[in-house]
């Protein structure tokens, strides 16, 4: 056991890494695409994703980014922390801007991958119309939603994906009353070419899903749970641990949907063999944002997770 409660030894880790992803830590490229000394908060989950995700995407990409933490992280004029070409755009227009860039690439005869990278607010709330339109038109783009479950860049206000009961600056005292939107399900209803859920705590899983997405024509949607220490109320060192706990408790599931077929991916699939998962309470108690949850609410959450996993065990 290490101080964070991580109960894997090194051999377990390498096994998991190799089992869940084709790319291992050892063969992952050392080429970096973002400079250190950027404006991301200490312990930022998005930083892990961006850094590793770019290793999968490579240099022949154009990024489209609406207002989000990523806007700030990528640099303030005239300095770009990122080494990628980026088009910063208005909040509601990400997928439509990406459509325009893609159309231009087609005119120019370039295969350059157009990657829209937005937060949960930019995707599930203000950007959903443009995203729905791009999905319906089967635009050939990769759309990445990093979901830190609130408007973090503006100081932790509730978003459509904020879980029920979460304390945010606009759901104080008793937490958010409403359940979160299931964005991947909404995307899946559009029958995209590829859909995957990922976690910032499993960057190699994300990396290899991006490698896969690059090879598929049509709209590829990746939804990533992204721990945010200041927004979630946890220590900066706990970013990876918390995301891992969300997966291991069965709360946030990693899966892919291709040709309408859902398939659990590595870290979640591994849980199918277990008769019981870590209790969700472990995940919730790591974070200040869940302090308003009652025992009853936690029990309801646990029952929902148990029911979901009973269904998975029947299906898979």
């Amino acid at each position: 056991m290490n101080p964070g409660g991580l109960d894997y030894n090194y051999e377990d880790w390498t096994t998991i890494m190799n089992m869940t992803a084709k790319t291992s830590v050892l063969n992952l490229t050392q080429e970096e695409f973002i400079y250190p000394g950027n404006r991301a908060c200490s312990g930022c989950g998005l930083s892990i994703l961006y850094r590793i995700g770019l290793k999968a995407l490579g240099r022949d990409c154009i990024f489209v980014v609406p207002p989000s933490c990523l806007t700030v992280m990528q640099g303030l004029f005239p300095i770009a922390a990122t080494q990628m070409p980026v088009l910063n755009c208005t909040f509601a227009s990400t997928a439509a801007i990406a459509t325009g860039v893609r159309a231009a690439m087609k005119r120019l005869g370039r295969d350059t991958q157009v990657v829209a990278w937005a937060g949960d607010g930019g995707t599930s709330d203000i950007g959903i119309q443009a995203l729905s339109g791009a999905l319906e038109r089967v635009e050939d783009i990769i759309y990445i939603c990093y979901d830190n479950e609130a408007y973090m860049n503006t100081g932790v206000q509730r978003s459509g994906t904020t879980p029920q009961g979460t304390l945010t600056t606009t759901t104080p005292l008793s937490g958010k009353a409403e359940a979160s939107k299931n964005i991947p399900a909404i995307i899946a209803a559009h029958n995209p070419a590829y859909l995957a859920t990922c976690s910032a705590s499993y960057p190699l899983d994300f990396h290899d899903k991006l490698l896969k997405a690059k090879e598929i024509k049509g709209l590829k949607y990746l939804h990533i749970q992204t721990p945010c220490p200041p927004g979630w109320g946890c220590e900066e060192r706990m970013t990876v641990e918390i995301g891992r706990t969300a997966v291991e408790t069965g709360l946030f599931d990693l899966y892919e949907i291709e040709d309408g077929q859902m398939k659990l991916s590595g870290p979640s699939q591994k849980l199918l063999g277990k008769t019981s998962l870590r209790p969700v309470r472990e995940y919730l108690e790591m974070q200040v944002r869940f302090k308003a949850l009652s025992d009853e609410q936690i029990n309801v959450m646990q029952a929902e997770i148990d029911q979901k996993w009973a269904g998975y065990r029947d299906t898979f």
Partner: protein
Amino acid sequence: MPDPRFKILTSASTSGPGDAGRTGSWRVERPVIDMDRCIPAKTGKHACHLCWLYCPDNVVSKDLEPTIDLEYCKGCGICAQECPAQAIEMIPDADFIKGADRE
């Protein structure tokens, strides 16, 4: 092509390190690696490198004896938390300043 009389100033940024300055100054604690416990350092073989993988700020090297760029390390401690060999300890930066004073 634009008319040469026009400057056309836009917010087009070019890349480089340190947009936020020397972010090492944000740090309260610094990671210190015990090479006797660090798996690649101890075994002399490339293995593990989880500190390199998970570092949000790209400041850990993928060397047999990993190094940390303290100029930019924000001190989050993810490397220490994730190290399966518990080879990384977070030590208050103030201790290093005090140590320097004593010398």
